């Protein structure tokens, strides 16, 4: 059965709950004031964008977890793992080393 997407109100409740749990108070901002540097309406909107756009896209991407370790600094890591200036893939290096 298809999951019903959350409504804007439900997302706002989720966002406010998450912020309250970690102790962040956005009620100090005006509710809506386009002349203010920030307001609650815009904060909630940008957080909803992340939740409805970025999170599903990342979640739906399914890389091979064995072949693709979650490396923080891929450039230095990949360079260390190569001996030809990075032209050779880590997969090929593993094969050369008899590791798979």
């Amino acid at each position: 059965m298809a999951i019903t997407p959350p409504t804007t109100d439900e997302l706002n409740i989720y966002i406010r709950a998450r912020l309250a749990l970690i102790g962040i108070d956005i009620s100090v901002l005006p509710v809506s004031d386009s002349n203010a540097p920030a307001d609650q309406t815009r904060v909630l909107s940008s957080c909803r964008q992340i939740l409805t756009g970025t999170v599903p896209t990342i979640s739906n991407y399914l890389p091979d977890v064995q072949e693709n370790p979650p490396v923080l600094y891929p450039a230095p890591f990949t360079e260390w793992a190569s001996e030809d200036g990075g032209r050779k893939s880590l997969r090929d290096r593993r094969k050369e080393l008899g590791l798979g």
Partner: protein
Amino acid sequence: MNDEDETTDLPQDRLIDRRSFLTRMSALSAAAGAVTVLPPIGIRQAMAAVGLGNDAYAQTIRPEALADPTELTISEAATLIKKKHISPVELVQAYFDRIARYDADYYKAFNTVRGEALAEAAIAASARNLGPLHGIPLAIKDNYYTAGTLTTANSYIFEDFVPDFDATCVARLKAAGGIVLGKMQMGPLATTRATTPDGIVTTRNAWTPNNASTDPGGSSSGSATATAGRMATSSIGTQTGGSITAPSNAQALTGLKPTVGRSPLYGIVPLTYTRDHPGPLARDAKDAAIMTQVMAGPDPNDPRTLGLPPVPDLVKAATPVRKGGAYALRWPTTIGVIPGFLNGTSATAVARAAMLQTFASLGATIVDVTLPPDWDLLTGGSFNNVRLPERSEPFLEFLKQDVRLFGVSLNSWMQGLFLGGEDYLKGQRAKFVLMQQVLDDLYAQCDVVVQTSPVPFDILGLPEIAFNIGFSPNSDGLPVPIGAIFGGMPFAEDRLLSLVGAFQAVTDFHLKRPADPVVALAARSIGGGQTLRLTAEDVEALSE
């Protein structure tokens, strides 16, 4: 310049040995490794800089630079200081004069001008010459800690912050003889073009000092404007999403974003700790090489810098060579041209085509390349957003204290709180996929590749160099720079510098300087009579 027999060495991207640093195999183990190798806080002395040889000094000084010391490159100024034809005091005073005349009303590049610089220059004038940076006035982005000098990152959070130590990069520049002229305007917390914390636009593009609406580039715009506007000999910035390459392109400078970890981040206000890169915004490739040579190398206070290949002789790499009597590339290089790079008939397209033709005449092979299969997805907005939790986490205490401290930049700090741990780890796996595809697919076709967006190589931590390739007139008829960016393989800084050094040996774009502000136009000098302001939406869209 070097003789051709000195060109038989190889760039570092061809010389890396296989190494085993298995602690870096995963995000979690990398973090654990970082904890175990961190020295006690307080050990922060700079590592000895790699020696700078004679290649750093100019063999000839341009007449216009002899006539106006603010015009000198580092290389030229170093030669004159070494020969005692100019003193560091004269140099600093020349910049102070120009800052006093133009900065407050037009360029708005400085957050703090350090009056102490003059006394420091006097000390340098009577001291042993420390090398090419001896007595050279430098502009430092205001997110680098500077001992005893206000370091605000243009944020309410740091508005009263005076560090008690220098960032490693600053310490190294000072140890090499550099003089900190001042701290530069920047995007709040390094997010966008320079504005006040609540979004009022400050720094202008030095090429249009009477018009605030021309974008001066990304968050290192104060550094760029100071260097382009001849208010400092050179400068440093940081790049997380284009903030070295964009202002360098916007203001006709040579900017080098080194490979992640090549230069230490210790003592820099963080934005995105896996993507922050310190680097120079300089007047030419030689100056960028001198700055990077001093800044780069292992720092016990930054584990990201440890265990990497040694820093090669970047200054030599940037020094043009002749082969058969003509300037030529130091190393054979294939330049990859991505789809769409030459499309259209705009001034930019024409300048790009001419740039590639120049490189071909220097001996480069130019090839059209295809982008890796997952390029659009893995360099797009969603995977670029994986960086956001890295800015939220170190600032949680301030978010809890008062969200208003973040001014106009608040949104992206809030967004970072809404990616889950699994999203973040998936993002790191995606980086690895992208890196493998770049190395296996893209760099199977070429040695360096032209770039049109900073995002892909900022995600991967790969090096980039930005340089000027021409000008086009704006609506006021003023020339506005056109830039190009090359991206390289890990630790390819030497190759990138060698390419731009050769390009600049046969072109003169890097020698052109913007006209001074027109004082009679002061009335329209704040965005045509209006105060320019970025909204939260603008900042979110432009955020690094």
